[in-house]
């Protein structure tokens, strides 16, 4: 009702300004202020307004009535006095002239928003190759040679793992970047690693064989589970709003111990009611991972976390099907 009244007021004032003579003014008066005019019509529907909204709607109705009546009176006085214009006039109601502009992809927007929030928390963006070796995708992450996660069925190997010493593969997780950073840098380390990962999933509305993850890693002296929870809570509140909450449920991952599933109580879309969403995994870096990467687990401790970027982007923009993200139809891309 309030929106409708505001629209009546805008239309009325615009058309009133365009009324240039007594006849068009009278037609306007009948359209807006007359017995069968738009305001009267709106008034008739007043009883359909829910009770709790009545006071506001009533006040607005009176205000619009007053505004239109005053504008009409003023315009009537003007039209009587002014001479009709000659020559071209400015028309501010013609549509704007915009050069054709493009858009960032929503996945890349969300990636950057996430990196920005983590940057404010002292996390640098780190990068690693997508074409990986087993050492970084598995071995250094405490996933031993006979582990089922290494099955060629569940990975995109470029070389046959049974026939090659160092088979190459598309990384199945961004945790590979953890291993690469820890191999080459000394702690303290605080990084996030966003990027593409590949798993031969059957494609449907929520699964794709290529998707994006963001991985976080913090290594320092005295880093604890409480630091992990604090960091994730700070992130959740900074990105999703001050009412966000987090919950950790025990789980198992080879490269963290203790390990946990990460749930966040968030409104993915501003204004929606917050609800619990399974977002990803997290935990304390397993000492075996530190040792494999040449970091002394007695001196340093750390935590790691990871979650999917598509999940957040799809929730935030209400994308119904993950495949839309990769079709790149301009009508989709232009909606942001």
């Amino acid at each position, binding site marked *: 009702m309030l929106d409708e009244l505001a629209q009546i007021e805008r239309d009325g004032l615009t058309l009133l300004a365009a009324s240039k003579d007594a006849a068009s003014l009278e037609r306007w008066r009948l359209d807006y202020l007359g017995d069968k005019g738009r305001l009267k019509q709106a008034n008739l529907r007043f009883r359909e307004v829910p009770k709790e909204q009545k006071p506001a709607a009533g006040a607005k109705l009176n205000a619009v009535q007053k505004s239109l009546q005053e504008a009409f009176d003023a315009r009537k006085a003007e039209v009587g006095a002014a001479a009709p214009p000659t020559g071209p006039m400015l028309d501010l109601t013609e549509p704007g002239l915009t*050069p*054709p*502009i*493009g*858009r*960032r*992809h929503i*996945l890349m927007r969300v990636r*950057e928003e996430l990196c920005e929030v983590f*940057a404010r*928390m*002292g996390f*640098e*963006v780190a990068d690693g*190759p*997508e*074409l990986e070796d087993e050492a970084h995708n598995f071995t250094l992450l405490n996933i031993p040679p*006979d582990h*089922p996660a290494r099955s*060629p069925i569940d990975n*995109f*190997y*470029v070389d046959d793992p049974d026939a090659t010493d160092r088979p*190459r593969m*598309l990384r199945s997780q961004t945790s590979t970047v953890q291993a690469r950073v820890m191999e080459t840098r000394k702690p*303290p380390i*605080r990084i996030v690693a966003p990027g*593409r990962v*590949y798993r031969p999933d059957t494609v449907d509305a929520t699964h794709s064989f*290529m998707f994006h993850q963001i991985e976080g890693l913090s290594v320092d002296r*005295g880093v*604890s*589970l*409480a*630091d992990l*929870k*604090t960091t994730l*809570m700070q992130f959740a509140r900074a990105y999703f709003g001050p009412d966000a909450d987090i*919950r*950790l*449920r*025990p*789980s*198992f991952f080879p490269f963290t*111990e*203790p*390990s*946990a*599933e990460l749930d966040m109580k968030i409104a993915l879309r501003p204004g929606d009611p917050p609800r619990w969403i399974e977002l990803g995994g997290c935990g*304390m870096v*397993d000492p075996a991972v530190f040792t494999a990467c040449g970091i002394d687990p007695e001196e340093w*401790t750390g935590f790691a976390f990871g979650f999917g970027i598509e999940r957040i982007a799809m929730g935030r923009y209400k994308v119904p099907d993950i495949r839309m*993200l*990769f*079709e*790149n*139809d*301009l*009508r989709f*891309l232009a909606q942001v």
Partner: protein
Amino acid sequence: MLISVRWLNRLLEPGNLSGAEAEAALTDLGFPLESREAIAGGDERLDVEVTSNRGDCLSHVGVAREIAAATGRQLKQPAVRLRADLGAAPGALGSARVENLIADDRCPLFVARVIRGVRVGPSPGWLVEALESIGQRSVNNVVDCSNYVLFEMGHPTHAFDLATIPEGRIVVRMARDGEPFAALDGRKHTLSAQDMVVADRDRAIGLAGVIGGLETSVTDRTRDVVLEAAAWSPWRVRATARRRGIRTDASHRYERYVDERTTAFASARLAEMIVEVAGGTLEDGAAWSGRAAPPPTVVTMRAARCRAILGYDLPTAEMARLLRAIEVDARVEHTAGGEAVRCEAPPFRPDLTREIDLIEEVARTAGLGKAPVRERIEIEARPPQNIERAGREVASVLAGLGFFETVTFGFVSRDEASAWMPAGLSALAVDESRRAGEPALRPSLAPSLLRCLRANHHAGVRPATGVRLFETAAVFAERLATRETIESRNLGLLVESPEGDGQRALRELRGAVEAAVRTAGGSRARVLVAPVERVMPALAEGSCGEVSVDGAAAGYIGLVGGAALRAVGIEESAVAVGEVKASVVLAMFPPAATIEALPAFPAIERDLSLVVDEPTAWAVIEAVVREAAPDRLDGVEFVGVYRGKQVGAGKKSVTLRLRFRDPARTLRHDEVDPQVAALVSAFESRLGAALRK
């Protein structure tokens, strides 16, 4: 893993657990529920997710133990009257004889017991109901007992018909290559030397840890049974199950480790249950063969280390209490290094071998919610990351120029890969069965952008100004000579000219590349495009330029050739593509500029239109100007090209703008006339150009 709440309550004291309470406790302990449903008889069935490290919880006893610890109940272990330890090693006893030829980590223990005179028949109601409550079908009373023990304590067992095994002689060995095996499910397998089997004198009668044999199974005519309880190597069971394409409740548990120290108990439990349900007489003792049982795992957990990982203060005695609740024999010790908890892991928890494993158990059973969340974090200020900032700014500028950012898959067909492969490189590909039709890793972003163009055309999306796309992503190839892997992050662009004007598409694309480079590297960054032979077969002949940025090779631009367009199903169209290495462009950020004072005096501009032969390139005209080096020349600009009747066939008119300036004073026109005249004659003599009036 399906769990019956009623079954759990038989193992709990007090046995008054509700489905909702079970769900809450299990979720907090790290065993979330897939589902919880009411089933016949007022029972509830839970579908519990069990992580791969917790094979012990693939059983009612395992789940009940966790719930007992979390809810303050007692676990009522099923009791056996038989001695659970086996005594000295009698390979033969009574009617059965066991020879374990692989009594190492392959088959640490094999136990056989014999019951004579069983009456095979239907199971009693309670047993049928218990199995049905977790979705299992009753077979007969003997088989049902074996299944019951599996779901009760998580230890698989098997019953053979003694009459089908000559002399009751069981041999545990590796299969022979090509050895046949007929499985219980009716399928026939040909085994290999990597498979472990249970055999009689002549043939395999069980595929170890996976499935029993058909010919030796218990039937209505069976009188005497041999009961197998054994421990097997997890990875060998997994390998066999995968090779043979069989997944059973038994293999699922063996793959997750069944400890040999629980095997004797499972054997006794099964034997007593069968005698109770199906009658018969249990022969004294067990025939068994195995290696010496390993000693219990003892781990010392430093209390201070535990507190450091948790990040909150938990009394050492409380740590020990939490661990004892899950049957870890935990005792507080005072050592030189401070308080510690000496932990002896129970045999069903092979996952507890390190200090961190016990810390995790403390964290988990105390509740992860217990770790505090603070209001602040400490940070060390770090400089902004230039590559990130450059990427963002370049993408924003391109979007402002009308380019849409895409995210496309990294796979293309083998044909696309070869069409877009630079010389000297070859394609990398994944197994065809993983990505049918497009197994190649893309060597270029262009084919992916072309597919987007095609998809938009097919959807009827054709903006009046043409489609413009960009993406920053990795491309892959391998060097033919050295097999060196190449992964490069490229900025790829595509411009379509709706009028079919290739020159226009190329200029727009080049303009976008220049804008991207200057956004990262500043307005003085030098972008050169040198005409070269096409760098990929998919590009049109004579359309290709090599892009260099401040002298460094950065990429290419070009028009997509007709064959490549037709290959993706795009009808005749002018499409320009280009790629530059993100590492070269983004690394220029932030622009290093020195601001110069603005000119104090106005310039004089002169436009010249030169009629030249069609092949005369702009770069040549520019070079003539550069070579002549007219006095006080401040700059030369390309204005446009005109072709038409007035100019004549095979000719074009190129308009350029010359700008003259003196830094110290205002120039007069007569001061630049001689330079312009000299240039015109240079154009005439060098290029045969005529001035167009």
